[in-house]
């Protein structure tokens, strides 16, 4: 059967987009797309940065074909990432009909499973509370840290529903959590304010973003590395700003 090069290109670009959207590293996206193309016996060029994917190949009539995908702002979804990665391996091994392959990619997108909000909030409670304990807080601090974590979770979900950008979301989350911590400490439940705030902030910190940025730069993907590094710095600044706003407000009201 004659290979439909446009469809192959669509499949490759779609696969790259899906991987990138679920939070894969740049080199993984490029490598997967390359492998997919060579599985169908085509040599092509691919290029990926965190918000753009380009795939191009030359058809047997010596006509160049190119597809570009713009990657929207995205989070990390490990479950989706593992499934797309699995599918990509399978496609490379079996090289099935292109229509069937495209359908399988779309199917993973439709069957996306995620935790409902209340379980995610429980996750925020457990994670942030335990980090408050981890940083040396008492049991009551841990409880307060958990409550602050839930406040962050609610705030992120709410601002996310309004379509706010990452910077604003982080500022709002940090400010809300610091205010909650202040209130809880003032009410006498929390004992050490800093332990509570630090524990809750762990849900916002860009820890892995810094590591990924360095990894990309070392691997030679300069543009990805720099843009991820800038994102990490921006989030760090947003956390500091949000917390500073809340603490400043508290100092003002306490002083006046």
């Amino acid at each position, binding site marked *: 059967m004659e290979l439909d090069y446009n469809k192959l290109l669509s499949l490759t670009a779609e696969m790259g987009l899906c991987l990138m959207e679920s939070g894969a590293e740049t080199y993984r996206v490029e490598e997967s797309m390359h492998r997919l193309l060579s599985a169908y016996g085509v040599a092509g060029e691919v290029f990926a940065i965190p918000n753009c994917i380009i795939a191009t190949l030359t058809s047997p009539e010596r006509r160049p074909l190119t597809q570009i995908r713009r990657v929207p702002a995205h989070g990390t979804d490990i*479950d989706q990432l593992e499934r797309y*990665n699995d599918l990509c391996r399978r496609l490379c091994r079996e090289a099935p009909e292109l229509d069937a392959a495209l359908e399988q990619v779309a199917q993973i997108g439709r069957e996306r499973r995620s935790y409902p909000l209340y379980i995610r909030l429980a996750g*925020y409670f457990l*994670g942030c509370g*335990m980090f408050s304990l*981890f940083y040396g807080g008492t049991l009551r601090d841990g409880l307060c840290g958990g409550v602050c974590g839930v406040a962050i979770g609610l705030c992120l979900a709410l601002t996310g529903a309004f379509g706010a950008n990452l910077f604003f979301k982080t500022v709002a989350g940090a400010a809300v959590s610091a205010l909650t911590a202040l209130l809880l400490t003032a009410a006498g439940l929390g004992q050490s304010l800093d332990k509570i705030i*630090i524990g809750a*902030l762990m849900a916002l910190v860009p820890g892995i973003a810094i590591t990924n940025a360095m990894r990309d730069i070392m691997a030679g993907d300069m543009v990805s590395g720099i843009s991820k590094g800038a994102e990490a710095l921006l989030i760090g600044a947003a956390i500091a700003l949000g917390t500073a706003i809340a603490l400043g407000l508290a100092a003002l009201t306490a002083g006046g």
Partner: protein
Amino acid sequence: MELISGYVLPCLYAFLACIGFCFLFNIHGIGMFICAGGAGLGWLCYLLTAPLVGSDIIQAFLAALVISAWSEIMARLRRCPVTSYLLVALFPLVPGGGIYYTMEHAVSGEVDLFLSTLLHTLGLAGALAVGALLVASFVRLFQKRREHRS
């Protein structure tokens, strides 16, 4: 008693905290325990190396090495991307306290303290990244060689 409060409890906290964060990154099933196990293991390494090296930046570096190695092995075994496990397992090492105290010093105008805390925080973040990178580069080197031969 000291064993429990000094070593067991912090690792347990790290483990449970990472279980909590697994829900946020949509990790299902056994992956949750692998992530959290990596986090607990990493923190144990951090605590155990404390008397040997006596510098928290080097401790963080060694712990990052252990966590990355654990994640790489688990990723190979389960045929999954490494990020799945590395992402959450590194969390206890992230200098969250450093970020907060840096900000606090900046707000209250203590420039000297601000600068020294900032540098220390950057050092910790750097140690983390370099540790994770070293293992990843090493593994890829090995992989490339094997692919080359076959």
